[in-house]
């Protein structure tokens, strides 16, 4: 299966978008080569601003550009975008509800060798808790392009969580991302795995493994963490009676929390959360880290089996 990193798809989507929409501007903080905004810079140098190693300033500058009708995409690593510039996102972007798109790359532990200082495990919790913020977690290259497009059509601030490592392409080119509408990747009766980002591919693999053992599980892909597709989650709970969430993020505050909140309020069923268990990551190869921290297809399959 072809693998493409979502950051790679982001860089390409920006170039396409830049050609279509003259109001799109791109800001980076000395990571354009890594975040892949460099492609946009090459095509549209006068609409690209490198703010240097100054993330707070990048977010504030984007806010100012947005007040004048520009559509700024800001990129840096997720850990810096949401951590270093948290207050700027809160005060200068989210509170005034400005249309600033924060497309953060290198999210999660699959950053790999750089280690915990560069691995955001709490960015979704921070951005999900932020009023006005829309949160996308694309699972593949096609969803990334869709999220970029959808972000432009959104009203207020948008967070797009992107990864460093290659992930399988799950959708055909005809796939259309509808914000807030979860995608049923696979239908099943015994349990539902609700996943986002690169864990969607792992969830599909887990479903295959379980099918071989006669367990029929569905996979729901939540590419929009906010607004959350409450109906799709409740439907899955009603149909299958057991839910496992899977995310490359802390089990606190991200997808697992969002689903647990939804089930608790609307349709409580047994559930388990696969994700980082309140710990930081460390250096290692992405695959090694996914194994060590329990984020593989096997881990998901085990969670399903222990639940039903």
């Amino acid at each position, binding site marked *: 299966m072809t693998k493409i990193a979502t950051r790679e798809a982001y860089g390409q989507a920006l170039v396409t978008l830049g050609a279509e929409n003259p109001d799109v501007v791109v800001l980076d903080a000395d990571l354009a080569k890594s975040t892949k905004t460099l492609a946009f810079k090459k095509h549209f140098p006068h609409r690209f601003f490198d*703010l240097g190693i*100054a993330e*707070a300033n990048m*977010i504030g500058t984007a*806010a*100012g*550009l947005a*007040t004048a009708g520009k559509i700024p995409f800001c990129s840096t690593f997720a850990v810096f975008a949401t951590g270093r510039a948290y207050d700027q996102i809160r005060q*200068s972007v989210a509170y*005034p509800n400005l249309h600033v798109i924060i497309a953060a790359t290198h999210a999660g532990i699959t950053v790999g060798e750089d280690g915990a200082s560069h691995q955001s495990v709490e960015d979704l919790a921070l951005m999900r808790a932020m009023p006005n913020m829309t949160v996308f977690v694309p699972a593949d290259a096609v969803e990334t392009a869709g999220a970029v497009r959808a972000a432009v059509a959104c009203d207020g601030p948008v967070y797009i969580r992107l990864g460093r490592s290659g992930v399988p392409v799950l959708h055909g080119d005809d796939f259309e991302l509808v914000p807030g509408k979860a995608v049923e990747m696979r239908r099943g009766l015994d349990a539902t795995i609700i996943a986002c980002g690169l864990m969607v591919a792992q969830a599909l693999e887990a479903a295959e493994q379980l099918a071989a053992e006669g367990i029929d599980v569905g996979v729901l892909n939540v590419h929009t963490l906010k607004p959350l597709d409450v109906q799709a989650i409740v439907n899955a709970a009603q149909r299958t009676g057991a839910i496992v969430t899977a995310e490359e993020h802390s089990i606190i505050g991200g997808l697992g929390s969002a689903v647990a909140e939804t089930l608790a309020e609307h349709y409580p069923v047994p559930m388990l959360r696969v994700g980082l268990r309140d710990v930081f990551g460390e250096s290692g190869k992405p695959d090694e880290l996914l194994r060590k921290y329990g984020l593989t297809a096997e881990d998901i399959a085990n969670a399903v089996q222990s639940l039903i």
Partner: protein
Amino acid sequence: MDMDQAVAELAEKARVIRRHIIAMLGEAGSGHPGGSLSAADIVTALYFREMRLDPSRPDWPERDRFVLSKGHAAPVLYAALAERGYFPVEELGTLRKLGSRLQGHPDMKKLPGVEMSTGSLGQGLAVANGMALAARLDGRDYRVYALLGDGELQEGQVWEAAMAAAHYALENLVAIVDYNGLQIDGPVSEVMAPEPVPDKWRAFGWHVLEIDGHDMRQILAAFAEARHTRGQPTAIIARTVKGKGVSFMENEVDWHGVAPKGEQIAQALEELA
């Protein structure tokens, strides 16, 4: 209009604005008089002479922008906006009350004329940079003004933004430092000395002007010089007196964030009569 008359009219307007500040804060029962009063002459000069504005069209794309980075001085901004006709003067009495458009710190989504929501110090200059860049991208000639506190200069983001503004040669940008020498915990020089302030801005690549921030002629001359400055942004370091115009508030650190009450309101208004 000749200069003497213009200066006299602006001084009179600043007096009216100072009265509004006292009345609003008295009515609200909380808020920040010191830094509102120190900035009154500068803000008056901006709104009643320097800036290109049309209060009937707060969204006019060609308007000049003012970012009150020291957002706690909201009363001076509200008073200027009301006097300039953005909303009825009577509305000033709703400051900080439930349902009011005049939030404790400026909210651009609530009140027409407010260009940026502020309150978390250190952020306004970066936003002003973005506005100034947008003007360039759109080929518009509007200008952008940001007012910062001297204590606020301790925020690292100010210097990130200062570096960026010079890097992008934002000649349509003016940063004004309300150099009143005080912050909450004491004199700025004791809490975290910023000196030499003008040299710092110069070293960051700005055209720097030092003025008396209560001398209307100097304020206007500085804005005029900034308008003719090419290739770099202008920083106006305005020496001011915190609490200016109300004798018992002047240079008093304790009048940073408490509102006057009863007899204090009466005395302040009398001094500003």
